[in-house]
C-alpha cells in the first residue's frame, strides 16, 4: 500500500513538474498571454462565485443609502438607486462572459464553414462570399451593431446574435486564407482522388489544418464582443438599467460623475477595461504562440 502510494505520488509529481515546466516555458515565451489568462481566470472566478462573493443583492435598492461614497460597508459606494456598486460590479462579470462566449461561438459556427467552403471551392462562390465579407469591412462595426440591435429589439439574445453575425466575416477571412494555401497540397488532392465527399474534405481534412489562425482570433473577438455589448448598453440600446451590466452602469454613472459622485461609473468602467484587456492580452499572446512568423519577428 505504501509502495503504491509513493508510486502514484512520484507519478503525479512528475506530471505536475511536466505541466509546471510547460507553463513556465509559455510564460517566458509570451508573458502577455499568461497575464491575460490570469485576468480572465479571476473574472471567471468572480462570475461563477458571484452569489457567494456579493455582500448585497445587486438589484435591491435601499432608499436611505442613495449615492453614498465608498466606505467599509459599501466598498464601491452606492448608486442613484441605493444599490451596492461592489455587488453590481461583481455580478456584471456574468454578463461579460454570458455575451462573449456565445457570441464567439456564433461567429465561429458561421465564419469557419463559410471560410472553408469559399477557400476550397474558389471561383464565383468564393467571389460572392468575399464581396459580402468586404462590404462588412467597409463599415464601422459599432454603427452596424447599433443599427441592427436598435431595429431588431434589445433582447440579450438579439445582442448576441447580431454581434456574432457581424463578427463572422473575420473568421471567414482568416480560415479562407489558410485554406487557399492548403488547397493544392497533396494530402487534399489524394483525399479528393480517393473519393471523399466535400464535407469530409472540408471538416476532416482541411479544418484541423486551417483552424489555427481562427483559434488565435477567438480571444481578441471575445474582447470585442464584451466591449461592443457594453457600448450598446451604454447608449441605452440592448440591456437596460437597473440590470447590473457594466455598460448600463456606466450610463447611470455618467450623470453623477460630473457632480463628483465618480464611484457609480468609474468602478464598472475599470472592471470593463480589465476584462477587455485580459481577453486582448490573452489573444495577443495566443497569436504570438500560434503564429511562428509573428514569433520570430525581425530575425
Amino acid at each position, binding site marked *: 500500500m505504501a509502495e503504491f502510494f509513493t508510486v502514484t505520488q512520484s507519478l503525479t509529481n512528475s506530471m505536475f513538474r511536466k505541466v509546471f515546466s510547460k507553463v513556465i516555458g509559455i510564460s517566458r515565451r509570451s508573458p502577455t498571454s499568461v497575464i491575460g489568462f490570469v485576468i480572465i481566470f479571476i473574472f471567471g472566478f468572480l462570475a461563477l462565485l458571484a452569489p457567494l462573493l456579493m455582500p448585497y443583492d445587486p438589484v435591491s435598492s435601499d432608499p436611505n443609502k442613495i449615492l453614498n461614497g465608498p466606505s467599509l460597508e459599501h466598498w464601491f459606494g452606492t448608486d442613484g438607486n441605493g444599490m451596492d456598486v461592489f455587488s453590481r460590479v461583481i455580478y456584471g462579470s456574468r454578463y461579460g462572459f454570458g455575451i462573449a462566449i456565445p457570441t464567439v461561438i456564433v461567429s465561429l459556427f458561421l465564419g469557419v464553414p463559410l471560410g472553408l467552403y469559399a477557400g476550397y471551392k474558389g471561383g464565383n462562390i468564393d467571389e460572392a462570399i468575399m464581396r459580402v465579407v468586404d462590404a462588412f469591412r467597409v463599415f*464601422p462595426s*459599432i454603427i452596424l451593431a447599433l443599427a441592427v440591435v436598435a431595429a*431588431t429589439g434589445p433582447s440579450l439574445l438579439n445582442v448576441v446574435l447580431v454581434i456574432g453575425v457581424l463578427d463572422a466575416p473575420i473568421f471567414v477571412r482568416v480560415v479562407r486564407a489558410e485554406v487557399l494555401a492548403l488547397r493544392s497540397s497533396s494530402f487534399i488532392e489524394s483525399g479528393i482522388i480517393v473519393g471523399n465527399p466535400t464535407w469530409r474534405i472540408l471538416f476532416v481534412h482541411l479544418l484541423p489544418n486551417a483552424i489555427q489562425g481562427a483559434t488565435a482570433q477567438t480571444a481578441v473577438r471575445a474582447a470585442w464582443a464584451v466591449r461592443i455589448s457594453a457600448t450598446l448598453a451604454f447608449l441605452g440600446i440592448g440591456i437596460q438599467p437597473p440590470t447590473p451590466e457594466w455598460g448600463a452602469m456606466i450610463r447611470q454613472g455618467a450623470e453623477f460623475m460630473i457632480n463628483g459622485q465618480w464611484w457609480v461609473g468609474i468602478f464598472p468602467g475599470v472592471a470593463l477595461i480589465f476584462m477587455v484587456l485580459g481577453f486582448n492580452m490573452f489573444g495577443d499572446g495566443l497569436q504570438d504562440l500560434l503564429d511562428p512568423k509573428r514569433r520570430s519577428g525581425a530575425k
Partner: protein
Amino acid sequence: MTLRTMLLRRLVISVPLLIGILFFTFMLVRLGGQDPVGLLAGPTATAEEIDIVRAELGLDKPLFTQFWIYLGNIVQGDIGKSWISNRSVLLDILERIPITLELLFWGVALGSVIGVPVGLRAAFRHDKWFDQISRGISLLGFSIPTYFLGLVLLFVFFFLLGWSPPGMGRVSLLISPPPTITGSYLIDGLLAGDWSVARSALAQLILPVIAVAIISAAPIVKHTRAIALEVMSSDFVRFARASGLPPKKVSRIVLRNSSTPVATFIGTEITGLIGSVSLIEYVFAWGGAGQYGLNAIIRGDFSAVQGYVLFLAIFSLVVFILVDLLVLVLEPRAAAE
C-alpha cells in the same frame, strides 16, 4: 491614364456595394420592431388616421416599391425627411459633416503624430523594454471603451482640476458662434478675427480630440511596428546591411519603405474610427453628424438612419479613393503597374 482607370474601377466596384448597403439598412429599419407611424400619429389616433399617416409617408406600398422610389429620390438628391427635426436629412447631415470632420481630423492627426514614431521606435528596439511598454500601453488603448475614456477625461479635467470647460457643445454657451464659413468654430472664429470665440472653441476641442487621438493611436502603434518589422526583415534591407551601409542609411531605407503601408493603414483606420468619433460626440454633446446618427438610431428615425449610413458609405468611399491616390504619389511603382 492609370489614375483614371483606377478611379473608374473604384466607382464600378462601389456602386453595387452602395446599393447593397442601402438595401440592407432600408430593410433593416423597416423590418425592425419600431413603427414610426404609431409614434407620429399619437396614442389617440384611430385606425383610419393611422392609415392616412401611413399613406402620406408612402409606407403602405410593397417594400420593393418603396425601395425603388427611395433609390429614385436619392438620385435626385432627396434622401428623405427626419421625423425628429422635421427637416431634410440631407441638410441636417451636410451642416454637421464639417463638425465631425474637424474632430476626426485633429484626433487622427494627433494620434498619428504620437502613434507612428512610437511604433517605429518599438520596431527598431524590437523586444527591448521600450517595445514591451509601448505594446502594453497600446493594448490598454485597445481595451478602453471610447465613451468611458471621454467620461473619465471630463471628470478629471473638468470636475477635479477645472482646467477644461464642461463637455457641452463646441463653444461656450455664453459666446455666440461665429458666422459660418467652414463650419469649424475654431477656424471661423480665427477668420472673423474673434479671439474669444476661437479660444473658447479651442478649449472645447482639446478633450474630445485627445480622446479620439488615444483611441486612434493604439492601432497605429501596433501596425506601424508590425509594418516596420516586416520591412526590416525583407531581403533588400538585409542586402543593404550586408553591403555595409551605416545604420542611419539603413533605417532611412526602412522608413521610406514603411511610409506607404503606414499611410494606407491610417487611411483605412479613419473609416472605422467614425464609430468611435460618434460615441465621443455623444459624450461631449458635440452636435456633429456622428451624434446625429446615433440619436437617429436610438430613436428610430428611419430616414435619418439611412441618411447617416449613406453618409458613412460615401465617406469610406472617398477615403479609400484618397488613400489610393496617396499610394500613387508615394509609390511610383504602383502607378507603373
